[in-house]
Structure formats: C-alpha cells, structure tokens
C-alpha cells in the first residue's frame, strides 16, 4: 500500500498536449476516481502511473521513492483494462497465474494465492474455462483476479465497468468498492461516468483537456464545483446555468431578480449562476415557462424555459404541470461563476 504523488505531470504526443501540469496526491488506501469526458487525458494519466507511458515532464512518487523511470514490472501495480485484455489462448487459471509464473513463484505458493484470490472473487469454479466461455461479468472478475494475485501496491482500473450491462454495473460497483476497502489497497479508477465516480470514490479528480479542474470528495465536487464544467458534468441531470448580473446582493436574470446569499454580497458584474435541479423550489423567483415534463415515478423533471435557456427542475411527482404554464423558480443553493474564466467566484 503506497501513497502516490504526481508532480507537474505533462505528456505530449507529438504536437498534442494530452496532460498539462497535473499535481495530484493519492493517499494510502484511498479510492481515487479520475473523472472526465473522453479525450480528457484521464487514461493517459493512469498509464503514466502504471509506467506504460513516460511523462514528458514531471515526476511520479510512490511513497517517497521516485518511480518515474522505473519500468512497469518494478512498480508493482495491478491494472484492469476497459476491455479486460484476458489472454484468449490461456485458460482462466493460466491467465491468473501468468504474473506469478513470470516472477518464478513456487508452484505450491501459486496454488495458494490463486485459491485465495479466486475464492474472494467467487470464480474458483471457472479455472479450466477459456475467456470466450465466460460472461462479461465473469471475464471482469478474472481480470481483477489477475491484477490482484500479485498483491500489488496500487490497483489501477481503466473504466472496468463500461462493458457491463447497466444492472450488473451497479451491482459490481458496490462490490468493487467493498473489495478495495477490505484489501486497503490504494486504487485509481478512471471513468467518464459521474455516477460511478460519486458512488465509489473517496475523492474525485475532475480532468478536462489535460488539466485538473478540481479534486475533492464526492460531496465537495457535487455541492461546490470550482469550475462551471465540473457542475455541468456531475449530477443527473447536471447543474443548471443562467446568465445574470450581480449588484449589491441582488442577482438580475432577464426581467426577474433574486437575492444573493451573504457570501456573494460583494460580487458585482456579469456572472453565471449555477444551481442543482434538486435545489429549486417552484414559487417566487425567476420567471419561466414549462417546456416539457418527464415523469420518473416518485418525482418528475420539469424543463423550464428561462429567457430562451433551458433549466431542469426536479419536483415531487404529485404536482401537475402543463406545457406553457408560467412558473417562478427559487433556487435554494446557488454557485456563481465568473463569466469569462468560468471558475467559481
């Protein structure tokens, strides 16, 4: 179990800058999610931690040791790939023992370790099968077993759930988190699915265009996004944004005005106001018109058109709305973003 420290990690592929000055610390035994849209550089960062890629600039430390120039095999990491990459010509047993065979571990020791890890993942009766004879969920367990059998210091996971169907994904999600905590292993988990990151991670690092936008616990990331992108990327439906003008504790949006909370009293000028669909009451406030209504059983998502911009609001399912109804929205919790830099004020 190690603490990982990334210092000013930059990676260039030719003219393309995949990562730009990433500083990140991952604590011992922590479950860190690297969250970002596709092409954001999150997988590249994972592969740099694994040692498959070398950073163009910057250093990587495991505890206090500099591993930047160490090859992958000397870093003692386990990696689970998005497509699992099980060797198709090897049985499950051979797949799992492959890392041990390479380390020339004694036969008896191999059997003991395989028994231990397969029992933990409940795949002990699949050892003679070949990867193509397994279901998606089973293949994924084998891939995790292969990563864990060498008792790595760090477990790296590259979107391991994205090839599973929706129901299985939610089931495995909980199991994976439990497993990580049980083993106390430092884990880095790459995903583009914000729900996955919120559900599993101790902390989330949001990455976009090779830059680290925010690092924090799921609560922090959800409640206090430091960048407009973070708010718009996390939550389902994500945060709403409206253009407004702040002046002496009052926020003007189109023809409507709402009072600003205390911490924003000194803000003056053009801003973007963000609020979560859950944190809105229908009553007094911003004027709008109902655009569409989606029923989700216990609650409903009402899309309201405000000055031509769409705002989603989650309200209890018992209220009736018709298209074209005039409503007034009162956000209970808001975040203000700078209009130019899109960072939180």
């Amino acid at each position, binding site marked *: 179990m190690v603490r990982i420290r990334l210092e000013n990690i930059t990676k260039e592929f030719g003219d393309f800058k995949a990562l730009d000055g990433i500083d990140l610390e991952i604590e011992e035994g922590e479950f860190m999610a690297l969250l970002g849209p596709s092409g954001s550089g999150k997988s590249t960062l994972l592969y740099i931690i694994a040692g498959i890629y070398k950073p163009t600039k910057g250093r990587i430390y495991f505890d206090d040791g500099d591993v930047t120039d160490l090859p992958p095999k000397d870093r003692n990491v386990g990696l689970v790939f998005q497509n699992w990459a099980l*060797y198709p010509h090897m049985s499950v047993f051979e797949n799992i023992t492959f890392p041990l065979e*390479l380390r020339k571990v004694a036969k008896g020791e191999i059997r003991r370790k395989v028994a231990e890890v397969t029992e933990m993942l409940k795949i002990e009766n699949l050892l003679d099968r*070949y990867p193509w004879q397994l279901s*998606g969920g089973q*293949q994924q367990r084998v891939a995790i077993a292969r990563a864990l059998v060498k008792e790595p210091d760090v477990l790296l996971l590259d979107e391991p759930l994205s090839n599973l169907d929706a129901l299985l994904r939610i089931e495995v999600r909980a199991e994976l988190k439990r497993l990580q905590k049980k083993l106390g292993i430092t884990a880095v988990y790459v995903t583009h699915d914000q729900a996955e990151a919120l559900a599993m991670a101790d902390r989330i690092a949001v990455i976009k265009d090779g830059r680290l936008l925010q690092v924090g616990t799921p609560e922090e990331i959800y409640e206090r996004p430091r960048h407009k992108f973070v708010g718009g990327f996390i939550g389902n439906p994500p945060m709403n944004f409206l253009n407004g003008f702040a002046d002496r504790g009052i926020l003007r949006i189109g023809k409507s005005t709402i009072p600003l909370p205390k911490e924003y009293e000194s803000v003056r000028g053009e801003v973007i106001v963000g609020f979560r669909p859950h944190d809105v009451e229908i009553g007094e406030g911003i004027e709008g018109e109902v655009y569409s209504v989606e029923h989700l059983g216990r609650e409903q998502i009402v899309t309201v058109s405000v000055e031509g911009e769409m705002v989603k609001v989650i309200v209890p399912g018992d209220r009736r709305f018709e298209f074209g109804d005039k409503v007034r929205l009162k956000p209970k919790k808001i975040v203000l973003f700078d209009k130019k830099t899109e960072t939180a004020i």
Partner: protein
Amino acid sequence: MRDIETKSRKSELLIILTIVIASVPMILAFSLLVLSSFSEEMVTNLKSFRPTLENWINLFQGKMAITGSIRVNIFEITLNTLIVALGVAGLVTIVSTLAGYALSRMDFRGRKHVMIALLVLHAFPGVALIVGVYLLYKLTLPQDPDLMRFYSFFYVILARGALEIPMSVWLMKGFFDAIPWEFEWSGIIDGASRITVWRKIMLPLVKPGILAVALFAFIAGWQDIIYVRTFLIDQTLATFIESNIESEFSHMPLIAAAGTLYLLPTIVFFLIAQRILLQGYSGGLKG
C-alpha cells in the same frame, strides 16, 4: 413480395453461377491430369480413359522414360523438394514474425523507410534479380564437391526466401496491427519483457497469420523452378518434371502421375491449414 432480400438472393445466385462457370476449365484441367495418371494414354475424352496403375508403379520405381533404361530416385527428388520448401517456409516465417512485430509495434528511426523499401522490393520480379544473385552465388560457392551440394541447398533457400520475405513481413505486420495494445500492456504490467510478450502473448494470437505466411512460403519453395534450376545441384520435382517433358522418351501419362504427386502436398497443406486459418479467437477482449 418483392423486397431487397429477394433481389440480393438473385444476384447471389448469379455470382455463384459465374464462379462455377469460371472454375470449370481449372477443375477440368486438374481432373484430366489426375485421370491421365491412372490411364494408359492421356485422357482427352471418355473413350481414351483405360485404367491402369502402371504409371504410378513406374514412377515410384524411378522409371521415367518408357524405355525403362534411365532410373531416378523419385523419393530423393521429393525429399529435395521438401527440404527447399520447408527451408523457405522456416526462414520466411521466422524473419517475418520478428520483423512484422517490430514494424507494427516498435517506434524506431527509419521505420517508414523500411516499410516503403519492403513494398518496392516486393515489386521486383525474382527473374530480374537472378543475374546479380547468381554472381553472388559464384563468388561464395565452396570448392569441395560435397560442401558445394550442401551449399547449393542453403543458397537456394536463402535466395528464394528473400524474395518472399517483403510480402510476408507486410502480411505479419497487418496481423500484429490487428491485436489491441492492451494485450501487450497487460503482459508488460504482469512483469513480462518485450520478447516474452512477443513469444507468449503475441505469437499465439497471430497463429493464423503465421500459418498463412508459412503456407505461402512453403508453396513458393515447392513450386519454384527458376531459382532451383539456376542454383540447386540436385533436382526437385519441378525441375524433374520439366526436364522429362523436354526429353524425347517422355511418356505423358507417367508425367501426369509425377504432376499429380507434385500437387499432393499443396492440397494436403491447404486442407489442414484452412481450418486453422479460419479459426480465430473470440472473447477475452471487449470494446
């Protein structure tokens, strides 16, 4: 009901019919060859087929001419052909699996130039190179007669293999290209060296490619006549049949038997290989 399905089925039938008609001359020619080898005279119509095993008996006794005075060891000739064909297949397979991997997976200086050079080399016909290749042969040929025979085998395999290598390397590169990087990364993370990854993970995955390359190289060596006649001191089946067609004692049905024997390994090799060629791996990787 007229729909796209009926239409495509009709055109499919048309395609099949065209293929069948186009292959009739080939099938007919090969059938006549095989039939003639079991007949007293060349089969040109149904009446001329008079069954006999004499041609085959004569062939295996090494009596090539009907007069029976000249005898050759057909087994030795077959063995020579096999040595050349297997030699070429072995050489080409080893070089192209290594070079194909390097060109597909490794970033080194001059990689692009090597690939272009391979294509250009492939475009060179073997006949055009033979003068230069012969000069090299003469310069390096040992004086000792026994050594000379051995060397001629070595040389013909090397020269014929060299002609096959450019295309085979391209072919193998294609097969390696098709394997996702994750397999290789996974092997490296598991603690394998590059060469171990190549041997234990990549090679099993490109098995169909290796087989295809080996097969083509084997057939190239088996059927080659120009290089074999120029360099090899011993005879192979190809040069043997050719010299018999030209001889004044030739008995055509006997040569048909030799021709049929010449065809056999190719057919057998293809029958074995096609199953493995068509069998790919599935599963183990999603995405």
